């Protein structure tokens, strides 16, 4: 089985978020980047297929050279090879077009993407690449088994789970549940040293169009001060909720 894991290079959740160029661009200054958590769950599941079922695992990212450390980390965790499509990831559609080309050229059986990346949270790429490559698609995937070309997958649905059967070729939008947080791997020294020797191929992008343009980013309004109300002063509480917070 040939597996492709899509790796998004995203700011660490503890990073301070700022914007530049009149609030139209994310300011990457001083920001630490990591593998998108949903992708890391998927990559870890892919490692299981590699070790237990002899699958080969390629990781791919659409982005500039600054994303290579993230791909190297994926190689250090155990992926066999990496591909970087050398273009800025501008919107979901443009990224999906680039990935669809990689998927078609590489004839992958299983494509594991994250349900969404935690930077812009578009959540569009997995569905789009399934559509563009004519593959089956399971989103919000929390468990995945493959026997030959038969697949059993579980999706998270509102308030419960749904188990589905389908077949390869398949695209999933993965998330926590594919593996648990405690299963995530920290690359050891051997992994880090081997990552240096594994192929990281840089592909030039195909011509593609973007369907959206960012006009403005806004941060949530800063939290106001906390007002404490004495437990026996319910009138004051109602007054504040009504007149100041205007929620009742």
């Amino acid at each position, binding site marked *: 089985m040939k597996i492709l894991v899509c790796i998004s290079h995203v700011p660490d959740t503890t990073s301070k978020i700022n914007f530049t160029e009149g609030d139209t661009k994310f300011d990457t200054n001083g920001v630490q980047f990591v593998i998108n958590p949903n992708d890391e769950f998927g990559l870890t599941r892919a490692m299981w297929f590699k070790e237990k079922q002899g699958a080969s695992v390629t990781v791919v990212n659409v982005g500039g050279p600054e994303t290579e450390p993230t791909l190297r980390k994926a190689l*250090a965790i155990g992926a066999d090879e990496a591909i970087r499509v050398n273009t800025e990831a501008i919107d979901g559609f443009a990224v999906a077009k680039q990935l669809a080309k990689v998927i078609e050229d590489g004839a992958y059986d299983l494509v594991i993407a994250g349900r969404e990346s935690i930077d812009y949270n578009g959540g569009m790429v997995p569905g789009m690449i399934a559509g563009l490559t004519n593959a089956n698609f399971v989103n919000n995937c929390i468990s995945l088994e493959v026997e030959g070309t038969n697949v059993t997958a579980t999706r998270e649905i509102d308030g419960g789970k749904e188990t589905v059967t389908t077949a390869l070729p398949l695209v999933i939008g993965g998330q926590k549940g594919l593996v648990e947080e405690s299963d995530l791997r920290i*690359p050891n020294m051997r992994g880090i040293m081997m990552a240096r020797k594994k192929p990281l191929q840089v592909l030039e992008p195909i011509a593609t169009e973007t369907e959206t343009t960012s006009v403005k980013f806004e941060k949530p309004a800063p939290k106001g001060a906390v007002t404490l109300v004495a437990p026996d002063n319910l009138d004051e509480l109602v007054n504040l909720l009504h007149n100041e917070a205007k929620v009742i």
Partner: protein
Amino acid sequence: MSNMYFTEEHQLFRQSLQDFLKKEVVPHIDKWEKTGTVERFIWKKFGEMGFFGLAYPEEYGGLNLDLFYTVILLEELQKINSGGFAANIWAHTYLAMTHVNKEGSHEIKEKYLTASITGEKIGCLCITEPFGGSDVAAMRTTAVKKGDSYVINGSKTFITNGVYSDYLVVAAKTDVDAGHNGMSIFIMDRDTPGISATKLDKLGWRASDTAEIAFDNVTIPASNLMGEEGKGFPYIMQHFALERLIMGINAHARAEYALEYARQYMSERMAFGKTINKFQALRHSFVDLYADMEMCREYNYMVASRLNNGEYVVKEATISKLKSTKMADEVAYQCVQFLGGYGYMEEYPMARLLRDSRLGPIGGGTSEILREIIAKMVIDKKEYKPAAK
């Protein structure tokens, strides 16, 4: 971070190590600080990750990497703020194992170095004695050759990993009348009859098992002699360069950690209607310390780079420890001040950092002894040469 010394692989290692420490070590630190015992499982995990083998030959399971991997290991160990845990790890990896690697025979390395790299065996280095600390040559522990054995008698004190280690690297006199030339280095298993250890209570480094060790007619095979008989003193002196640089690097790293913590704290703590990082008295004090820290760090990187290139940097490493440990103590003292009463509380990191830091100018050569060495080299133009092996 300086790109002059650190490549992308170094950074990947640093990140991986940070993730590992956060996940596997930090949750246990408070417990280990209380019990004075670093549990075994973590040594095994360090071994599995490959962290003990950074600087050692591939033949014995190591990775034979440049010294900047070691720099990263040391720095990140300081930044989880347990000088004692860090000491256990680096005393094993760079005090005990350095002697095993440099002086040990192939058989000794197969038995001890390999198991030290996997984390199955922990080592300690026993030089200091109750009557010979700074004055190393005054040691009284003896090793007398009897047929195919040596018989060791005497005592050691202040030994890091002294209680829980599996093997001991021990300096002893093989010729009591020969002064500097009468000292040799031996390796022995903890369970050899006649070895006993007592844990010592101390100001800081509380997670570390510092011990007094007694040797009562301890009989070991003659093949446990490491290197040549009588060469112990030059071997010890030779490795002091690395040891001192390590303590210099530890010092700049804990100072960097303390300053970063204080910087963040000062940007949030309010007094007189503003955050305290707006008070000029604190700003200037902070900047002076920051500048000293950065001077030490860059100097230490330069020394590490030269040591990595095979230069014998005994003077520079001595300067590194002298200056960096003093700077770190000043930073620790002042960072407690920046935090006010919170600096004095155990729930905040500065209290532990202050007491852990205090060992810097004492262990591995006191500042007074270091000044003596530098004075001999700079004023008297004395030259120190590496030992033969």
